[in-house]
């Protein structure tokens, strides 16, 4: 029998019935009485001075209710890295200068969308076009135009990580490889575009309904940009159509709608269209990667040196975090005794690159796992073996960076090795490639500078024993409402259906940093567990009195039965005790409170997930076309709380990460993105989707609720690398730039053919 009654069971997603019946109201579905519709005018130039904005004609147009420009703002720059003012570099409504095609310059609210759209055409903006720079390697040269005042060589942030003695260690290596890689961009492509309804009332209070990954961040960032008080702003997160990293910074829809609403005291709704979503929101960070890897003959990795230049785009956003994490995860999941990372984020006149599922780790895993296979090949060692030799183990310490507690990497390796053996001898042009990975369970560093605990929760027990959970955690489709409800039900010993969860409404829920960095299962989960335990303790006082038990006996609740742990048959109904407890407390509702902030400041994360994925591909050597046939993943995410949710995360990650490896890209020319429509943006559809298998590894993470840890993003990391390695196994060519398109494979095959012919000629 499982020691748990609720967690680990298969349940229907909270809110699922609303979603399958069309009753789920997303921000875009909400309409308020008297609501206006907003549109945003954006820069057509990658880099230009704003000389003048004339809005008079637009203001006079029938149906137009308000027009705002940078002049209507309080003139502040914002950024999510609030602790570092120099990284708060985005005005949202530009006052003097635009820095990418899509930078907002004005916004209109009108009686309908058509009128707002027409009014945009009446706004006249005089620009003085400036020279622009698009490639990060050019941006960091003396000749490049300066994008932000005072930022020399356009270097926005740099990051250094080092331990051991790298230079000495390279001298002791038997073999050293130096390789270069280029990682492309990727669009989040949430099905629901960014949108917000802002309603500012005559009492000076602002309510914002928005599609967001963090209601709390939006509340605080709006406070700063509008010069309001935090408590006067309420951010509500209705059903949200995906986030993937794109929705936890303040965006133009939220800011412009709020500013417009403040001007007219009417609700204003702004929904970005798909073109804006592709060109004017944020995206995955493109990176140039330079790697040096040294090993002993037996495959022991001695040293790694990593240099990265990232294409930052116009603003900092979460790009600073991506730069740090790609450097940290470049060492993952191996025990490098000597390691050095230098990363530079360059401003460019392109769309800002920022957080996206995996947060720098899909890039580092693609390059690292490709190079590791190349090293194994050079040394004549099996790819599994080199990973086994160097892979992290439980209780490993990454010097100055991380304390690993649970780590199921080696069990994962065993399972994947067995899987590969089970596939037997493959037909020609088929190959299986592997890639190992790890990821964090939320970040520790407080760059947002919040005075609150990182997660908090309130658990309220009602007279009939039903439970309300209040959490600031954001449900964006990933299933956090379900996971947190399961945790609460388990801790309280009630059924999953007894829980009703209220999440991510800053007016009624305690602050929580939101859904990013795979933090909510562990952090919000711990807060909910603590709140449930607090409520439970209050019941236990009454249960102990009722049962007349000796003080040495411990009580617990399971399936609605409060009982002695050692004598489960002796107990009392949970429902009776709830009634008794509420009466006994002068009718006061039972409220439990919980919070969680990770300790070990300065370290990356409280816990790490691990895994390995095997990708099987079949290449057509005539055309370079290949098919991703099968992706098998052994994944250690600690105790599984919500198995249906984990399956969904895993399979969904393969769609997104496979797309990153195979086809997704956002090429731009002179700062203009060339494929800003779903029809032109290639991604994996159902016919391209491989077979997926999950091999669960059973571990227990001491820091997580019931032993759970990350399960959402880590899975985005391995697929591109596994595909690259599989193609090499299949046809012997190696592609060092993402995405690995059939065209690149075809060219590499032709190149290989030429070389082989030359060799043959020489032999003759």
């Amino acid at each position, binding site marked *: 029998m499982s020691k748990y009654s609720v967690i680990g069971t298969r349940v229907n*997603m909270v809110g699922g019935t609303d979603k*399958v*019946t069309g009753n789920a109201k997303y921000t875009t579905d909400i309409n308020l009485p008297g609501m206006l519709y907003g549109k945003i005018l954006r820069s057509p130039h990658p880099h230009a001075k704003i000389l003048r904005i004339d809005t008079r004609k637009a203001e006079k147009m029938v149906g137009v209710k308000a027009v705002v420009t940078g002049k209507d703002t309080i003139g502040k720059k914002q950024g999510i890295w609030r602790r570092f003012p120099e990284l708060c570099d985005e005005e949202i409504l530009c006052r003097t200068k635009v820095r990418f095609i899509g930078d907002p310059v004005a916004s209109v609210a009108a009686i309908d969308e058509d009128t707002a759209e027409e009014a945009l055409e009446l706004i006249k903006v005089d620009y003085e076009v400036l020279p622009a720079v698009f490639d990060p390697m050019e941006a960091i040269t003396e000749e490049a135009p300066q994008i932000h005042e005072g930022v020399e060589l356009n270097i926005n942030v740099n990051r250094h990580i080092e331990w051991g003695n790298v230079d000495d260690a390279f001298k002791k290596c038997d073999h050293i490889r130096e390789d270069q890689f280029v990682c492309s961009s990727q669009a989040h492509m949430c099905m*629901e575009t960014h949108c917000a309804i802002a309603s500012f009332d005559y009492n000076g209070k602002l309510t914002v309904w928005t599609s967001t990954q963090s209601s709390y961040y939006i509340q605080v960032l709006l406070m700063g940009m509008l010069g309001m008080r935090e408590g006067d702003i309420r951010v509500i997160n209705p059903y949200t159509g995906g986030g993937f990293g794109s929705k936890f910074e303040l965006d133009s829809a939220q800011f412009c709608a709020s500013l417009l609403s403040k001007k007219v005291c009417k609700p204003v709704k702004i929904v970005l269209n*798909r073109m804006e979503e592709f060109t004017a929101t944020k995206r995955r960070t493109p990176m140039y990667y330079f790697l040096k890897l040294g090993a002993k003959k037996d495959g022991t990795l001695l040293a790694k040196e990593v240099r990265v230049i990232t294409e930052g785009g116009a603003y900092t956003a979460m790009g600073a975090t991506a730069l740090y994490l790609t450097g940290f995860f470049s060492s993952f999941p191996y025990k490098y005794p000597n390691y050095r990372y230098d990363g530079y984020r360059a401003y460019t006149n392109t769309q800002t690159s920022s957080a996206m599922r995996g947060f720098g780790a899909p890039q580092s895993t693609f390059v690292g796992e490709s190079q590791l296979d190349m090293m194994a090949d050079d040394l004549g060692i099996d790819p599994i073996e080199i990973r086994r030799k160097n892979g992290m183990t439980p209780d490993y310490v990454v010097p100055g960076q991380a304390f690993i507690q649970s780590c199921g990497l080696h069990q994962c390796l065993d399972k994947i090795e067995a899987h590969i053996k089970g596939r037997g001898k493959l037909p020609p042009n088929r190959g299986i490639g592997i890639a190992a990975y790890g990821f964090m369970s939320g970040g520790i560093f407080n760059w947002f500078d919040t005075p609150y605990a990182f997660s908090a929760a309130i658990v309220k027990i009602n007279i009939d024993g039903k439970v309300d959970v209040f959490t600031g955690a954001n449900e964006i*489709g990933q299933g956090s409402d379900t996971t947190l409800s399961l945790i609460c039900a388990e801790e309280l010993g009630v059924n999953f259906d007894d829980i009703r969860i209220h999440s991510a409404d800053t007016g009624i829920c305690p602050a929580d940093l939101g859904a990013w960095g795979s933090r909510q299962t562990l952090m919000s989960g711990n807060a909910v567990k603590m709140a449930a335990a607090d409520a439970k303790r209050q019941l236990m006082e009454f249960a102990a009195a009722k049962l007349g038990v000796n003080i040495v006996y411990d009580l617990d609740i399971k399936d609605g039965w409060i009982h002695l742990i050692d004598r489960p048959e002796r107990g009392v109904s949970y429902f009776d005790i709830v009634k008794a407890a509420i009466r006994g407390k002068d009718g006061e509702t039972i409220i439990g409170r919980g919070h969680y902030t990770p300790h070990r400041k300065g370290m990356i994360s409280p816990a790490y997930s691990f895994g390995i994925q095997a990708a099987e591909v079949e290449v057509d050597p005539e055309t370079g076309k290949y098919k991703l046939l099968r992706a098998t993943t052994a994944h250690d995410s600690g105790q599984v709380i919500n198995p249906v949710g984990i399956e969904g995360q895993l399979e969904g990650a393969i769609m997104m990460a496979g797309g990153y490896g195979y086809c997704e890209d956002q090429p731009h020319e002179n700062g203009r993105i060339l494929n800003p429509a779903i029809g032109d943006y290639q991604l994996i559809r159902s016919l391209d989707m491989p077979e997926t298998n999950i091999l669960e590894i059973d571990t227990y993470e001491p820091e997580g609720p019931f032993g759970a840890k990350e399960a959402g993003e880590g899975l985005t990391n391995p697929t591109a690398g596994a595909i690259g390695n599989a193609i090499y196994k299949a046809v012997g060519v190696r592609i060092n730039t993402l995405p690995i398109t059939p065209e690149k494979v075809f060219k590499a095959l032709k190149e290989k053919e030429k070389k082989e012919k030359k060799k043959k000629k020489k032999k003759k």
Partner: protein
Amino acid sequence: MKEILKIKVNGQSHELLVKPKTLLLEVLRDHLGLTGTKRACDSGACGACTVILDGMAVKSCSILALQADGSEVMTIEGLATGNELHPLQKAFLDHGAVQCGFCTPGMLMSSKAMLDENPKANKQQIKEGIDGHICRCTGYNSLVRAITDVVKGEYKEVK
């Protein structure tokens, strides 16, 4: 400049005044308040706005409302019978084929039209049937499993 549109939606007849350029999607969402049908790409490329028009799955963002004059439309709001979910809705829930849920209404309407036409659809046909839809969350395989279980008769329809 507005014209009269006569349309039956989920069994109910409507007579509306619409502009010639109004899309079927806009009539459903903005005139009738049936916001279950989603707008996601504006270009007929993602399938989120799929409804059933006279028995056929169509993308309501790519049809002018007046083109549907005299037609019968079924949207996601019409899929359940009373308080009983349709087998496809149940199967989607059980298989975790719903995450953010934004593509779900369109995906369900396509699946229904597909199974109405071919109740014995096999795995490949199901994959083809939903290939016009983008789901950014699930990776499609859970959708295929859910629809397959409905084909197998694991979920009985309420008559």
